[in-house]
């Protein structure tokens, strides 16, 4: 009963922000399009190995809304398929980085002392290295595959969660209910995951949503630099990179994938902002 009332109040706050709702709608549309790509795109075969030199470099037209690329593939099709990679990258990277970062942050904040200091100094070291440089270094050592790209991004993302969670854990570890749980003999892992973690969920979720957009952006930057997905898999960042050399004559090649990146990052940000006001301020 209490829970439902909280939910409906939260949704009320969220839906009171038209931009957040717009973001949610955008996000739903993008996700659906990506999942249903084989059915909603005009030329699904263009997303895999396909070459048609007779139709290459065509400007937008009725049959190719976003034009065609250098080997005659439909840009619209490849943009929609490109979202598959983008969304996967975002979810997998944060799926790896968030549990790691949150766990370390809670341990450091809860334990404090020498253990906490060690964890936080390691975190600081990672935070001190520029993100792109770190990712490029990881990809320089490993093969340039998608999996390694995801690892590279995860490596540079967890410290932000550690730092945020560390601060919040320190703030609440002396709260009455935490102390009470300790007094009645709860184990450390129960205190961490049963008492502290639920209180961190709103801020983690908000940051997670905002970060999804940033991860996609950084992943695009990496593939723009040539460190991304292998061809012929469509990837928005690589499409922008490849098309940039053909400006301004073949503007459709970089512009549409670029707009697609903009759109998904914007959608995640709008939803993230909505979540922030939904959970109240203090973040």
């Amino acid at each position, binding site marked *: 009963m209490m829970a439902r009332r909280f939910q409906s109040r939260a949704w009320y706050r969220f839906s009171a922000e038209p931009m957040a709702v717009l973001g949610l709608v955008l996000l739903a549309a993008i996700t659906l399009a990506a999942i249903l790509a084989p059915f909603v795109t005009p030329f699904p075969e263009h997303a895999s*190995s*396909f*070459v048609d*030199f*007779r139709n*290459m*470099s065509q400007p937008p037209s009725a049959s190719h809304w976003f034009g065609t690329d*250098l*080997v005659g593939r439909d840009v619209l099709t490849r943009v929609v398929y490109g979202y598959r990679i983008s969304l996967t990258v975002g979810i997998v990277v944060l799926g790896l980085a968030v549990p790691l970062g949150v766990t370390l942050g809670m341990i450091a904040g809860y334990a404090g002392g020498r253990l906490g200091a060690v964890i936080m100094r390691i975190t600081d070291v990672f935070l001190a290295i520029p993100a792109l440089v770190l990712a490029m270094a990881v990809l320089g050592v490993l093969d*340039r595959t998608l999996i390694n790209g995801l690892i590279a991004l995860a490596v540079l993302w967890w410290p932000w969660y550690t730092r945020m969670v560390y601060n919040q854990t320190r703030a609440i570890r002396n709260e009455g209910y935490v102390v009470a749980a300790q007094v009645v003999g709860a184990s450390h892992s129960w205190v961490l995951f049963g008492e502290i973690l639920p209180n961190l969920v709103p801020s983690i979720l908000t940051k997670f949503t905002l970060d999804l957009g940033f991860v996609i952006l950084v992943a695009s930057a990496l593939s723009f630099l*040539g460190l991304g997905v*292998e*061809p*012929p898999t469509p990837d928005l960042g690589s499409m922008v990179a*490849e098309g*940039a*050399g*053909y*400006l*301004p*004559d*073949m503007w459709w090649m970089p512009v549409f994938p670029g707009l697609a990146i903009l759109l998904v990052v914007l959608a995640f940000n709008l939803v993230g902002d909505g979540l922030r006001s939904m959970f109240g301020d203090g973040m």
Partner: protein
Amino acid sequence: MTILGRSIQATASAVLLASLAAAPAVAQTVLTLDEHAIGEIDPAKATDYADSILFYNLYDTLVIPEAGGTEILPHLAESWSIDGTTYTFTLRDDVRFLSGEVMEAEDVVFSLERMIALGQGFSSLFGGVIESVEAPDPQTVAITLSGPYAPFLGSLVRLAVVDKDTVMANLEDGDYGEMGDYGQAFLSTTSAGTGAYSIDSHDPQNLTVMAKNDEYFLGVPEAAPDIVRLQYSIEPATLRALITRGELDIGDQWMAPEIKAAVAATDGVGLGTEAGISSFYLKLNNQRAPLDDVHCRRAFAHAFDYESILELTQITDDIAFGRPAHGPLPLGLLGADEGIPTGRFDLDAARAELDLCQYDAGDFQIQLNWVAGNPIQERIQLMMQLNLGQLGFDTTITTTPWAMFTELASSAERTPHVSPVNFILTTPDPDSMLYTMYHSDAAGTWASVDWVMSDEVDRMIEAGRTETDPEARAQIYRELGQKLVEDQVSIFAYELVGVFPIRDVVHVPALQEAGQTYSVQGMNFMFREMQMQ
């Protein structure tokens, strides 16, 4: 770059103002062009296209090829005689270096010894071939070879004569005993030659500025540009904008065809071509399974869509950067053979060859590589990926920067299965192409990523080198060409035609007039032959 460009323009204007004040009011003409970095100005180290452009403007050679042909003509050498394996050159007596010193035989001896000692650039043309080089008098150079070597005269277009006294006065510490660093530090920052142009400033990653040498022994025509600015590695979109805005006069041949077509469509820009001196290959690694089996190689060659790719090379209705290839040598070269059929795209024939191949397609992950900055190669590899996929091969397309490409090329195990290579003639002799790409002793470079390693091919290349009768040589090369095609060592994709956007402010006879092309890379950019309009 823009700031640098402006400051140079400012300097040029200052010079202009000064000359206006001085008296005969003549505006300086400035030619700006671009190539890929880096620009190596030491003539003993020159290898790339940019290096070659610098080479033929800053230095001169004993001989040069005729425009539009392969005959070797006198240049710094007035005449020569051949007695067995001894070549005796009589030098001109009216040639001066930038220092004012007269060019003499000892400079030629020094230049040749320096090139062999450094062992870089095209030194393999001379190393191990020359027994002795002497200067019996200031006007005579006698070079004795260790055996018959037919390409020798043609190779001399790669021997630049440097000013011995000036280099010796600028030696720094180095590994060459009394020769110190052999003038490497000095010659990497400035020129010490007889060339029609001299170095004003040089930044190998960015920009080289050259000025006309009024004392040039052949004279530099009034119409030739007074100042030449050679810029390196400009972003494609920037390059396109610079040409259409009139800030760059000659673009490079590596620009994408769409961009060349776009700039050629603007007023005041045309296209120049350099045909018959280069070829494009998709090189197959002959040492790596499954391509160590000739049948698998033939299957790959049948999976290449020759006609579509030739369509792809079409830039305008009448200009394309590719034309059908008949075996390894571009037509027009000694031993090139129009009788060798062009490749044929036929997936059924490919499947038939695959059946004869000892390997199964499904067992391999084929690496298709392309060189960063050559987008056309990516398109070709995407086409190969599609067609090889239909034969059952699993493929990955990778892109490597040029430095990485040459690094991988040093070992057969690391060389990708399929590598694209543009080869542009470095001397007018076919040996420079065949030896560099196919002889076992030359293996391990970017040019030999097919790793042929065949005793029989080696023997034929050597026979071509030692045979002095041109007709007999041509016959050897025709047979070699047929064998290389029979063994399908590479995919002979198309003959490369260099296509350069050229603004109307300059006329380049070697690229814009029929029959004026020199068959050596870089030589078509001799600025002294260009005419500013």
